[in-house]
């Protein structure tokens, strides 16, 4: 009620501090900004839409005109991509590998970061710097020796081997990010837990881990994207093993060269892109929050 009166008074004075009038310059800047950003958005969206549309066309339709809509919305491209090209099984392999690696690396990374962040002991600094070193060196440097490590322990070209390597390479980022997170949690809470009789294990799993949820979520999102998109590691140490999606996609694109089943290729790309895109659109708020968190550290 009071606000209503207040706003009426404002109106009668022709003065409204809440909504300043846009000046001419503001409008011009706004218009230019919107135009520039719209052009950029088009550059992003058009290729994606075109890929999506082409995934319903036959090869001859694609070559006849890049713009024309498909004569009918046929799904046989998807069926062919999913079964004949094996995208379905690659997809499943990717889900298994990335899912397992993600769970393992989050648990192990949180444990390691917790110990490094909250206990001071001989060598704790050295371990921390060792983790940093893993972030600095290019993965390429490790590929050749890694190939032989995997062969010697008999995990070359297997999914469990791939999972372990994914865990190893995602670990430094996870530890590095969660380290500062665990460090910032108040010490009183651990003390309270200890007074209540909780051991080290219980304190971690029932007290600290739930408190670290926001940090864990951010890291998990980035790890998921990083591992799902990983290409080099599977190509190097899983070349003859059951393929994951990124690897299978490359093989499919490479082998067809002349066989020309472009419709199925577009369908395969769409199958790869769309699930992650949908998940992103659902979680985009959290993700943009994590970007700002991840870089302010």
């Amino acid at each position, binding site marked *: 009620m009071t606000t209503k009166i207040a706003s009426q008074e404002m109106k009668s004075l022709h003065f409204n501090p809440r909504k*300043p009038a846009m000046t001419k310059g503001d409008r011009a800047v706004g218009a230019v900004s919107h135009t520039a950003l719209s052009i950029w958005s088009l550059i*992003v969206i058009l290729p994606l839409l075109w890929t999506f549309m082409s995934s319903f066309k036959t090869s001859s339709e694609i070559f006849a005109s890049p713009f024309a809509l498909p004569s009918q919305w046929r799904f046989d491209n998807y069926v062919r991509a999913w079964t004949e090209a094996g995208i379905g099984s690659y997809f499943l392999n990717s889900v298994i590998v990335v899912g397992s690696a993600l769970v393992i690396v989050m648990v192990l990374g949180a444990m390691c970061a917790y110990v490094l962040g909250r206990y001071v002991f001989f060598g704790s600094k050295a371990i921390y710097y060792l983790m940093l070193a893993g972030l600095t*060196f290019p993965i390429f*440097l*490790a590929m050749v020796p890694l190939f032989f490590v995997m062969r010697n322990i008999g995990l070359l070209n297997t999914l469990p081997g791939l999972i372990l390597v994914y865990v190893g390479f995602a670990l430094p980022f996870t530890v590095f990010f969660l380290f500062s997170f665990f460090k910032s949690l108040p010490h009183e809470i651990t003390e309270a837990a200890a007074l209540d009789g909780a051991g080290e294990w219980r304190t971690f799993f029932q007290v600290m881990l739930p408190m670290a949820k926001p940090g864990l979520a951010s890291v998990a999102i980035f790890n998921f994207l990083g591992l799902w998109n990983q*290409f080099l590691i599977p190509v190097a140490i899983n070349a003859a093993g059951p393929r994951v999606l990124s690897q299978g996609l*490359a093989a499919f694109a490479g082998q067809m060269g002349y066989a020309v089943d472009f419709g199925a290729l577009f369908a395969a790309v769409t199958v790869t892109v769309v699930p992650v895109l949908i998940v992103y659109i659902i979680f985009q708020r959290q993700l943009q929050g994590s970007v*700002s968190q991840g*870089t302010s550290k």
Partner: protein
Amino acid sequence: MTLVKAKTLRVGDGASAVVVPDTAPPVYKRRRKPLTFDKISFFVVFLGVPLAIYLLFVIWPFIQAFGYSLTDWSGFSPKQNFIGLQNYQKLFTDDIFMKAMGNNILLVIFLPIITIVLSLVLATLVTVGGSSKGQIKGLRNSSFYRVVSFFPYTIPAIAIGIMWGQIYDPSGGLLNGILTSLGMDQFKSYAWLGDKNTAMIATMFVIVWGFIGFYMVLFVAGIKGIPAELFEAARIDGAGRFRTAVSITIPLIRDNIQTAYIYMGILALDAFVYMAALNSGGGPDNSTLVMSQQLFFTAFTKGQFGLASAMGVVLAVATLIFSGLVFLVNRLTGGDKDVSL
């Protein structure tokens, strides 16, 4: 131990303890808690398991790579002869590898600067495009742009490469379709990736396309972290939008820019996925060949693991030099001045 006992005695001493204040501050004797099974198992599992995986699959291969690079090992023979720095000598006289290194340097020079400038411009448009009066606000309805811009980052790089490979396709691709429909008939069946003059530029465009949105979101987050009072103060002092962006925004998100520059540079030194997807053979006249491709080929096709490891070391050294240079330049141009809040 005696001290603690004396203290408890005095506290138990009823009235006197209340009246007489503690003259000495309470002294806690630090002593090691007995190592229980709980504690030992906790440390072993929490530190041991992650470290074991990390050392075996990451650190050990890194160390081995340096060793291999000094041998002529071909991987499948049991014999490896120590040949000192001969592999490196071979690399620096190998025309193809030097060509690849040149391409990497080209990428390192152009990719970060183009990506960061464009994403900074877009981030600035989103954040200061709003009204110049009243509360400091971003551009209206701009969250749509932010969401869309981030799309490419969620797409696997290999899918981006394959998609753009089709867009650049000479006869059925989207790009030539658009250009010819605009009346530019000379592009009727122009092979963007098949001509050595355009292959590199076309490839760079794809990588830039994939990362602008990510860095834009990163910079927007950085700019939003700057307190609004600073922008208000600048405005009261008469700074326009451009001046505000140059004198307030960029210095304050300098650390973000440095991080972005290093990430982008490391990516440019690798670039394997994009090159493999767009021109797996290195492009016309090796115009898009990069060191990582050459490494992969040398190792897993030719089986020259010693030589390939030397390439890996060169790549690692290049990465370190690049990061060091970025830090140095940032420092020399005044980045160490404390402008943070």
